[in-house]
């Protein structure tokens, strides 16, 4: 928190020419992305396009074959394990599943990072756990085991744990997937409060378009390992609400944003050789 004016204006996250191959196939194929202090950026794209993979590179759990990721001014490729661990204390992650430890109560899950990474006394930690659980509306669930709470509550517990160390950056992978509309709106509100009131920088991967358009300052559309478009929310709104233009990229993004059953995305799927494939299977 000793940011001077110069670091305040530097991007918090920079992804530069990032390439990642799995078994020879490029899942990320030259990704560039900058995230600025305090903003919420939403990353969208079809299933399997590489969103989670990109996120995992930003949180130093995967490393690219080419290019680099810089977090809070540091190139992740240059850091050793202790350097990475120090950096990991400065961001929080809400995983797709919530990722709680099943052998611990909800409260113990939230307390864990505080016990492991701070020298705070137990009483202060207990107060902080209560504060975090209240923030996500789960104070009453502190003594329950993960197996005793619903999926939505697990997500919120995961979020309480992700914010236990007051991170500067929060990464969310599908924060509202599988949640009822009210709980999902509550999560959106939390994301916005954390960024609006505390200045936390947020990177959110989501399929939920309502949520995306509610929380995003900027949006990024990923497609087959490439960044199709990055821009302010207003540009994506204009694209969603505007007419078809015949521009392949624009129309593809529009179909995705609207969830239309027909358009460039589905046309692409139809032209992937289903006929030859199934006839070959039939032994033709």
């Amino acid at each position, binding site marked *: *928190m*000793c940011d001077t004016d110069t670091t305040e204006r530097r991007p918090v996250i920079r992804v530069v020419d990032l390439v990642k191959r799995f078994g020879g196939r490029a899942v990320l194929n030259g990704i560039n992305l900058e995230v600025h202090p305090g903003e919420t950026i939403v990353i969208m794209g079809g299933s399997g396009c590489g969103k989670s993979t990109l996120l995992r590179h930003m949180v130093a759990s995967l490393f690219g074959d080419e290019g680099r990721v810089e977090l809070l001014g540091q190139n992740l490729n240059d850091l050793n394990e202790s350097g990475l661990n120090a950096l990991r204390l400065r961001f929080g992650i809400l995983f797709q599943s919530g990722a709680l430890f099943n052998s611990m109560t909800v409260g113990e899950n939230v307390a864990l990072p505080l016990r492991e990474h*701070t*020298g*705070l*006394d137990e*009483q*202060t930690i207990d*107060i*902080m756990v209560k*504060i*975090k659980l*209240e*923030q996500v509306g789960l104070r009453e669930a502190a003594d329950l085991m993960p197996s005793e709470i619903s999926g939505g509550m697990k997500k919120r517990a995961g979020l309480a744990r992700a914010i236990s*160390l*007051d991170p500067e950056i929060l990464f969310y992978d599908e924060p509202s997937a599988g949640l009822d509309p009210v709980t999902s709106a509550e999560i959106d509100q939390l994301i916005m*409060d*954390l960024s609006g*009131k*505390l*200045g936390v920088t947020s990177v959110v991967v989501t399929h939920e378009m309502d949520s995306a358009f509610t929380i995003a300052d900027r949006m990024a559309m990923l497609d087959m390992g490439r960044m199709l478009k990055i821009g302010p929310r207003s540009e994506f709104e204009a694209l969603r609400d505007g007419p078809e233009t015949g521009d392949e990229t624009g129309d593809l993004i529009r179909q995705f944003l609207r969830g239309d059953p027909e358009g460039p995305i589905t046309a692409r799927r139809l032209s992937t050789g289903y006929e030859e494939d199934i006839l070959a299977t039939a032994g033709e």
Partner: protein
Amino acid sequence: MAEVENPVRNVRWLDPEKKIVLLEAVGEVDLHRSSAFQKALLEPLSRRPQRMIVDLSGVSYMDSSGVASLVKLLSRVRRDNVDLRLAGLTPRVRSVFEITRLDTVFNLYPDVQEALDS
């Protein structure tokens, strides 16, 4: 390791009977400094003040460990019947109280003068 700076810069008893104590906190109250912060907050209580004012106008950043320290103080002063008043929170620090929903739990005043007068 550099010695941890105490965020409480100044402790002043404002009246001859020593009923009102003013603590002036400065800088950043974060994980590294919250233990020192707690210690300094609890110290004047041994002299049994009636009112304790914590001037937070010089605090540029406070994380939830700092807020937790103040909660700890609050539970102590409630027990000892001390009137705790927090004064001069900057918008950024106030936000931390709001997001943790503690802005209604503490008595907050715009500045020290108001905390003294009301």
